[in-house]
């Protein structure tokens, strides 16, 4: 019997996220009759779409043995830029001109803001050899401050039905945010599994010096990775703003923690070089189901934070143990 369990250990380790998700779903469905319903299923998927977007970018960063603490603030600024341009445009009284933005223009501006901030993160990390933790922590504050300046500390609301469709609409029976996050996951999976960029990302995370000796342009790949993470945070900001029909200056606070949690629970190693986008999706679903289950079970929001913290801790311990075993 013991021999049999030992022989199944690698398989169990490989599917640990799925097993955890199954056990979680089973437990919650036994305690709440509202959990296993179609409406709640779509609700959970819609809720996790934002986390899936930013966690996909975070996975790419963590695979290079980096970290991006700024995604929550970048998300807030991107959403605020989109909402501000869509609603207010840019009045230029000195030239008697008004630059208005269409829906497409506002969305592009918001996402490009995310890309720009991500690029800046990458530039600061590679140009000045800053630890990613420090550089992105600085960006966390910078982007939050810029959001406050842009919004004046007030929410920007009333963005119109076309815009809110992105966050609240349905397409062929599936919520639009699920389509968007699904598309992002598909592209990111393709990049990590089938392209040279993907191989380089894993190579840098596995051993940066070995990758450099192999001719990989480390700086360039890192810049691309952080820019992608910023871009995806921008998309996340778009979804949040659209869903709420409002750009909140304090949106996205602690989203970076949910994102890192999804990445780690999904089996991506914090030391880089090991993990997958699909694993992160599983991690995001686990976090989403956990949040949803705790709400359905009427657990106090304060306890919810405690529980989530312990789950993250457990995931990191498992990650450490499996790293040592390898």
């Amino acid at each position, binding site marked *: 019997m013991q021999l049999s369990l030992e022989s199944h250990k690698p398989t169990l380790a490989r599917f640990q996220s799925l097993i955890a998700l199954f056990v979680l779903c089973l437990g919650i469905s036994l305690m709440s009759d509202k959990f296993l319903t179609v409406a709640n299923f779509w609700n959970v998927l819609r809720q996790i779409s934002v986390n899936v977007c930013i966690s996909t970018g975070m996975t790419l960063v963590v695979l290079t043995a980096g970290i991006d603490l700024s995604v929550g603030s970048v998300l807030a600024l991107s959403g605020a830029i989109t909402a501000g341009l869509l*609603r*207010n*445009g840019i*009045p*230029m*009284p000195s030239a*008697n*001109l*008004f*630059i*208005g*933005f*269409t829906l*497409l*223009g*506002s969305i*592009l*501006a918001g996402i490009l803001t995310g890309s720009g901030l991500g690029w800046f993160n990458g530039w600061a990390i590679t140009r000045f050899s800053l630890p990613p933790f420090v550089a992105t922590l600085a960006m966390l504050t910078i982007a939050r401050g810029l959001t406050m300046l842009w919004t004046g500390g*007030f*929410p*920007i*609301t*009333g963005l119109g039905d076309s815009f809110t469709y992105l966050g609240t609409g349905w397409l062929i029976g599936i919520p639009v945010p699920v389509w968007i996050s699904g598309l992002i996951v598909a592209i990111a999976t393709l990049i990590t599994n089938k392209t040279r960029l993907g191989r380089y990302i894993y190579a840098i995370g596995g051993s940066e010096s070995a990758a450099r000796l192999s001719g990989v342009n480390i700086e360039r790949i890192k810049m691309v990775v952080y820019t992608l993470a910023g871009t995806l945070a921008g998309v996340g900001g778009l979804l949040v703003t659209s869903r709420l029909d*409002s750009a909140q200056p304090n949106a996205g606070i602690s989203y970076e923690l949910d994102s890192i949690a999804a990445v780690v629970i999904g089996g991506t190693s914090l030391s880089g070089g090991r993990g997958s986008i699909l694993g992160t999706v599983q991690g995001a679903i686990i976090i989403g189901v956990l949040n949803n289950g705790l709400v359905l079970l009427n657990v106090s929001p304060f306890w919810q934070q405690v529980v989530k913290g312990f789950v993250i801790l457990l995931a990191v311990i498992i990650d450490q143990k499996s790293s040592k075993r390898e």
Partner: protein
Amino acid sequence: MNATIARRKTRNRPWTYVVAIILFLFLAYNSVYIKKLDEVKAAGSAGTGKFDAATYAKTFWNTKLIPSAAGGAVDLSTLLSLLKTDKDKAFTTYSQALGIGNIRYFLVKGEGTVTAVSDNDVTLSLPSGETIRLATEYIFGNAARDASGLIKITEFDNTTDLNNVSAAINDIIRKDVIPPLKAAAKPGKKIAFVGAIELNRAHLHLDDIEVIPISAR
């Protein structure tokens, strides 16, 4: 072989740039439009026509709240009596609120004898025996805005505008209602009032009712 690929890549590059420029121009054309600021202002378009809470509050006060206040308000003694016997019915029948939650507002009227005057309020004794306070110093909150139920949340684009309306209505009360009330409030005098009160459905305290005055004579 490698040299051939490199040459092919070099040859392809100009086309890539051309496609990128066309795509950029297409996106830019469909993303931004430029107008004269005067035209936009005249059309009252987004970004320039800011909501004027003071004007809105003044219009609401003169055309809606004051004309309908006395008729729409419930007698305070009747309300207090009902709250003691059938709380749910009292809240369902007479309370208003723009949001969800236990905080609800009532538009009330009554007449009472002044028993005390302080810096913060005027204490009245109602004919039914209850004692209530008319606030004269701290005029805050949403009671005056929400108690009539005449303002709908859908009239506003954002919560800031809605909150500013509350502040503007409270300003009107401070400027137009409180000074004559304070001047007339002497112990032993009778005062008839219309006002708004805020009550918490889950934690109901009827022993200290504070009324935000909307009119008093």
